[in-house]
């Protein structure tokens, strides 16, 4: 049995978290990124016009998840990019290569949510499931 790729947002008093799953750790990371952008924008309205590549050297899985999301957040803040689709490869060494597809933020067209200020370590977790992985992360809004 393999775990179907998906994410859900969950509640926490002042902020919001994402719980994401996939048949591989990389697939779960892709879904976590989708979840983070789902907080900030209606994903369906984000077209794939540009892409950015993120490369990270090896790190423990939880730390790698945090770094991956932080790299994306930095691209959003420094280049005004919003992303809606991700392709992640995690090498055997633990190094990560991810490609994010999206476009420049357009206030007239995108239905925006709140800014994600930060990726916290509160409840941060990576867990193996039967046939896949589940990750959990909370964002500071």
């Amino acid at each position: 049995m393999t775990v179907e790729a998906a994410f859900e947002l969950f509640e926490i008093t002042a902020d919001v978290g994402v719980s994401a799953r996939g048949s591989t750790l990389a697939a779960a990371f892709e879904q976590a990124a989708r979840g983070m952008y789902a907080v900030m924008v209606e994903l369906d309205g984000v077209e794939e016009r540009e892409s950015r590549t993120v490369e990270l050297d090896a790190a423990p899985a939880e730390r790698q998840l945090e770094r991956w999301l932080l790299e994306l957040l930095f691209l959003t803040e420094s280049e005004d990019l919003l992303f809606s689709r991700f392709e992640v490869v995690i090498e055997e060494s633990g190094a990560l290569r991810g490609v994010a597809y999206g476009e420049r933020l357009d206030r007239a067209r995108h239905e925006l949510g709140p800014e994600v200020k930060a990726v916290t370590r509160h409840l941060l977790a990576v867990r193996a499931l039967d046939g896949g992985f589940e990750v959990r992360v909370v964002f500071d809004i």
Partner: protein
Amino acid sequence: MTTWDAVLQQIDEYRWEIPVSYKAGMRVPGRIYANLELLQMAADEQAFEQTANVAFLPGIVWRSLAMPDIHQGYGFPIGGVAAMRLEDGVVSPGGVGFDINCGTRIILTSLTEDEVRPRLRDLANQLFRDIPAGLGGHGALDLTDLELDEVMRDGAASMVERGFGRRQDLERIESGGCLPDADPTRVSTRVRDRGRRQLGTLGSGNHFLEVQALEQVLDAPTAERFGFTRPGQVVVFLHTGSRGFGHQICQDYLDRMEAAQRRYGIVLPDRQLACAPIRSPEGEQYLGAMAAAANYAFANRQCITELARRAFARIFGRDDDALGMELLYDVAHNSAKIERHTFEGKPIDLCVHRKGATRAFPAGHEDLPEIYRDIGQPVLVPGDMGRYSYVAVGLESAMHETWGSVCHGAGRVQSRHAAKRMLRGVNVAKRLEARGIIVRAQNPRLLAEEASEAYKDVATVVDVLEAAGIARKVVRLRPLAVIKG
């Protein structure tokens, strides 16, 4: 889940304690300021556990404190106060938070609601147009590295130098709008890149700029000294922080602190409490970077203040001097500051962490500017956008019990999603308009998350502090127009 009824020890009607016996490793008890209603609101989440966890931090003195607006945070609860001895204590970025030196400020005007009401919609539009808010909002400035250095070093004064505001604004800002010992060399390129274009922006979430009117005077002599002189007097209430600049500093230092904590052999129950001794290279580097972010936040609020003054001047056809747009005060509620206090009859220097708690120094305190030294510092307590906000004044008893600290707002009671669910189908902006409150939001979807239902009643929160003798209410303000990200 812990049944808090069995753990909490009631001291009096407004004080509750978590004894050190609750968890092995607590160095001091936890203390919560709340009435029964507020206590129950906070009991079903992790806020009390977090209050107990903060008591593990080395060097903590007296109590791990929680204000009546307490709710769950990361490591520290929001509404948490903890003071550490300098010799053997630690500094924890989690005790400051991601939004370093987030705070509030009130700008007075000599206008009344009757004068503003006919132009309120134009005013709201002008403010909304001139003050960037929300995701992707950029300021008018694009700062070079040298200019960023000035902002980090000089805080609000760096903006006054550029024509944003006046010299006399500076004395009406906590710490004069500048923390000393900011160290720009401790700030990464990534921090700079996130901060370059965000100066003079409001952000999103619970940040706001509101036009408010004086609704009720609760302490007439103090109100008058604070500049509240006429019924229906209009003020501007601003809440924002250090934007991506501060968020990135916190993020950078969480990593370094985790490593440092291991090196110094400090064991804590929550990763987000990562810390280092105040008197260690890591502690000093964080405090230097934190001060740089604090100064960025002071500069941000100073920049927005001037944008608001210009918007008023444009709408009312008089310059901001003629409109009486003096600063009342600017207070921070996310900071760690080295302060001199008295403990057990002796002077002591402490690093006071205030995570979602406002400094509230009383009359006579040497850190207060001359204008407030004989009366006490204005304490700004925003409520929610549909009800009211307060200005209070710090009391001497706060110095002894809470290191001169009070609550920072109403405190959340509903999660963002719960609020949205509860208000599905309700047009929050329309509902506010029907009550005469004009809302301009970059992101109307967000309004339900910030509606009154999502927050505790700030009146209850402030009443608890007054009844406990920590602060005294001075005036109550009511929103007329709300600008949101």
